[in-house]
């Protein structure tokens, strides 16, 4: 099994290491540069832990001006730069390389302004996703996109990956909740894209930057949309005797024109893992489980749940568990949101992220099971079913290279299946290095070339996060 490659380190950069470290130290305040080999280790990977590269140095600037100074310097000497938020990327998006300066935003973690009348917040890129909602919660607001990693991940990383979460079915993903950014371009120029106005003039550069995986510039500030918290929210649990029935039920709920806030899916292995960890009261004797959450006043929630339960009954739902209290609701969600962490405690896993048309859910679940079986592996499926965003967690033993290779191989086959049924490689985790070499399965050569050309308009030398997203062969010459 071939390992995913990185660009070969530039000898010219490696040989100047000491000089570069000294120059960066001049550009940054004390305590903002990491370069001792031992201290660099925590930055060698992200949540895609199978791959590690120790960077040349890590810059942890405190201001936009310092970010600009570092970029300007790196641009001048063509030193690769890898932006980093909290390093929770599941696709290797924040993994550095030996000749790279990691630009970490962790010290820029302030909420700069909250403006309820305009329902916006201006925050620094290193603020965590949850910190935004926490800051406005007492006043009755929240920031909608809610990745399960929200306690740790940063808004800068969310913008990098255009992250989603369970509640994005109703509220949209990061790009739909982002109004503006302060962006440092590769040469150190600072630009403001968008702002508190609902649309910006000219080309939609903000739309392009969101999800660009740190390849178009460094985000130092973001203006995000706040939403008034609903009066109430209530999840219901459904247990089914087969994954296919659960999948078909999801498609029917959407087709009925009901848009709940969230529809989450778990298969039997995932249920067992989450239940053992969180004690959420999930039924243990069903093959698949759906968590469907609705919002509104008591009367509205009753109304919607009645229609949803009726649809589930048509699909032979066996267990229906309506949450009776806020504590119960929280417990139901705790089980779901700890799925990745809980899985990590029992095995090593890689998390796939393909998205498929809803009608294909049952078909792809079947196909996934078959691929996994053929490779002699185990899988737990837990995902955002309402928008077709699947997360098979492929379990393996990282100490067994053969097992690891088969897991990667199975993952690739599953993603190809997603593309072949009309879906895509990644719905919210990004391409990173993980899916980079599958890009040609989804895009024709001309399509990829067009994307790369646009990327090059921002970064002609390809120094921003250069080993990611686009296959290493066939890139335009700098």
């Amino acid at each position: 099994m071939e390992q995913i490659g990185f660009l070969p380190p530039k000898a010219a950069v490696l040989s100047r290491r000491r000089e570069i470290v000294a120059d960066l130290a001049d550009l940054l305040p004390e305590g903002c540069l990491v370069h001792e080999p031992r201290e660099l280790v925590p930055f060698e990977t992200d949540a895609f832990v199978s791959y590690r590269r120790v960077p040349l140095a890590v810059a942890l600037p405190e201001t936009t001006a310092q970010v600009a100074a570092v970029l300007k310097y790196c641009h001048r000497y063509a030193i690769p730069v890898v932006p980093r938020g909290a390093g929770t990327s599941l696709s290797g998006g924040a993994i550095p390389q030996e000749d790279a300066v990691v630009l970490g935003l962790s010290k820029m973690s302030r909420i700069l302004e909250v403006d309820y009348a305009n329902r916006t917040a201006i925050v620094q890129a290193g603020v965590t996703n949850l910190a935004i909602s926490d800051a406005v919660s007492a006043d009755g607001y929240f920031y909608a996109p809610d990745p399960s990693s929200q306690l740790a991940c940063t808004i800068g990383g969310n913008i990098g990956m255009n992250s989603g979460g369970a509640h994005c079915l109703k509220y949209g993903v990061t790009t739909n909740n982002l109004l503006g950014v302060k962006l440092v371009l590769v040469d150190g120029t600072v630009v403001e894209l968008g702002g508190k106005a609902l649309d910006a003039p000219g080309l939609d550069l903000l739309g392009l930057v969101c999800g660009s995986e740190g390849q178009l510039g460094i985000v130092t500030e973001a203006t995000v949309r706040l939403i008034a918290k609903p009066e109430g929210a209530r999840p219901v649990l459904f247990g089914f005797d087969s994954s296919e029935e659960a999948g078909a039920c999801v498609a029917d709920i959407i087709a009925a024109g009901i848009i709940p806030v969230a529809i989450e899916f778990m298969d039997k292995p995932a249920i067992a893992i989450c239940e053992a960890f969180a004690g959420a009261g999930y039924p243990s004797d069903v093959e698949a489980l759906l968590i469907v959450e609705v919002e509104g006043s008591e009367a509205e929630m009753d109304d919607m749940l009645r229609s949803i339960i009726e649809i589930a009954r048509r699909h032979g739902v066996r267990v229906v568990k309506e949450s009776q209290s806020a504590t119960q609701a929280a417990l139901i969600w705790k089980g779901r949101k700890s799925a990745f962490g809980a899985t990590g405690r029992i095995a090593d896993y890689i998390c796939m992220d393909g998205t498929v048309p809803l009608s294909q859910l049952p078909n792809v679940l079947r196909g996934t099971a078959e691929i996994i079986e053929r490779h002699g592996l185990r899988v737990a499926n837990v995902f955002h079913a309402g928008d077709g965003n699947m997360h098979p967690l492929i379990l393996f033993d990282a100490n067994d290279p053969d097992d690891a290779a088969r897991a990667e191989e199975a993952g690739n086959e599953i993603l190809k299946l997603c593309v072949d049924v009309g879906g895509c490689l990644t719905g919210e985790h990004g391409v990173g290095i993980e899916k980079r070499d599958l890009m040609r399965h989804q895009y024709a050569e001309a399509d990829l070339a067009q994307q790369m050309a646009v990327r090059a308009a921002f970064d002609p030398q390809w120094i921003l996060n250069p080993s990611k997203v686009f296959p290493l062969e066939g890139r335009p010459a700098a």
Partner: protein
Amino acid sequence: MSVIHDPLSEEAAARIILSAAAAGSPLQIRGGGTRTLAQAGGRDILSSANLSGIVAYNPAEMTMTARSGTPLEEIAAALEKHRQMLAFEPLDLRPVLGTGGIPTIGGVFATNASGARRFVAGAARDSLLGVRFVNGAGEIIKAGGRVMKNVTGLDLAKLLAGSRGTLAFLTEVTFRLLPVPEDAATIVVSGLNDAEAAAAMATAMSMTVEVSGAAHLPESVRGRVLGGRLPDGAATVLRLEGLAASVAVRAEKLSAAMASFGAVSVLDAGATAQLWREIRDVQPYADGTARPLWRVSVAPTVGHQLVAALRLETGVDAYYDWQGGLVWLRMEANPEAELVRRYIKALGGGHATLMRASAAAMATTPVLQPQAEAIAALSTRIKEKLDPAGLFPAGW
């Protein structure tokens, strides 16, 4: 006289583009021809008129794929059969611009034209899942896809949305749909001045009643919608949509809260549909004149401050959508571009587009908001990557 090319296929469009490039003769892209977005300047026209038709409609998945030249009307008719709609309420500017033509779905996305629901449900770009286009090098390109969530590579679909024919020729679009709400109502608060209305709208938006439209029609405008049937005095209007029982409950809650601002009345679903269509399509200024009309986008609480500042210096009339963030500004005489943009800047930024004016004023006024130098330079570099020969007009 400029030639009109209306290819029957993407391949034919690519051939036209290649030969135009070879001949060094620039092109102007046209959808339904309902507005002239950049100065055509005697260019040959590349029209999507013959690239028409719905390619795939999957009501159960709430997505549709259509060729770019498909008339909006045809799409609306297909959606109506399944009680679905476009979330972003595309606007029809023909009445206010005094133009003809047939709005097309490609034109809607190329202009990112978005109506009242924009401030809660997103713009056209937020509904766009995938595109096919022919770039200025004659290459047929696909971007995005047909699933709801997709972060595979750069989001070129967003770049094409709102690009106004400056980058490439859109040939096909795939977009998401929403169910038509079962019921709708509008809460009307009467007699508020612009500043009071801004406060009332902000309060409404802070409530958990899911307002899906928030507009303010000052007294000068109030009589020009709904055939003058709105109660006397300025009208601040708040739309609620959803299941009938839910709309009723929320209407009661919102009415109670709004009563502290002014006299409250309620419009039913029929009147609601008409009112919001007229607000969206700028019906109040469809007055058959060419008096200058600006579309101004600012932070919602700033809209009324801008208008108040301008009033001290020149004759203006205005009304507000998007909670005050979208200002339709009609000037009495001259466009006063410099003045309008100076105040927008002073009040925290935003942008103004001149939508209508006399031919002379259109020709001498910077119609689009001038951009910061670094952004304009970046936009030019991006354009060069899609349209290396500069076949299509630039515009930012």
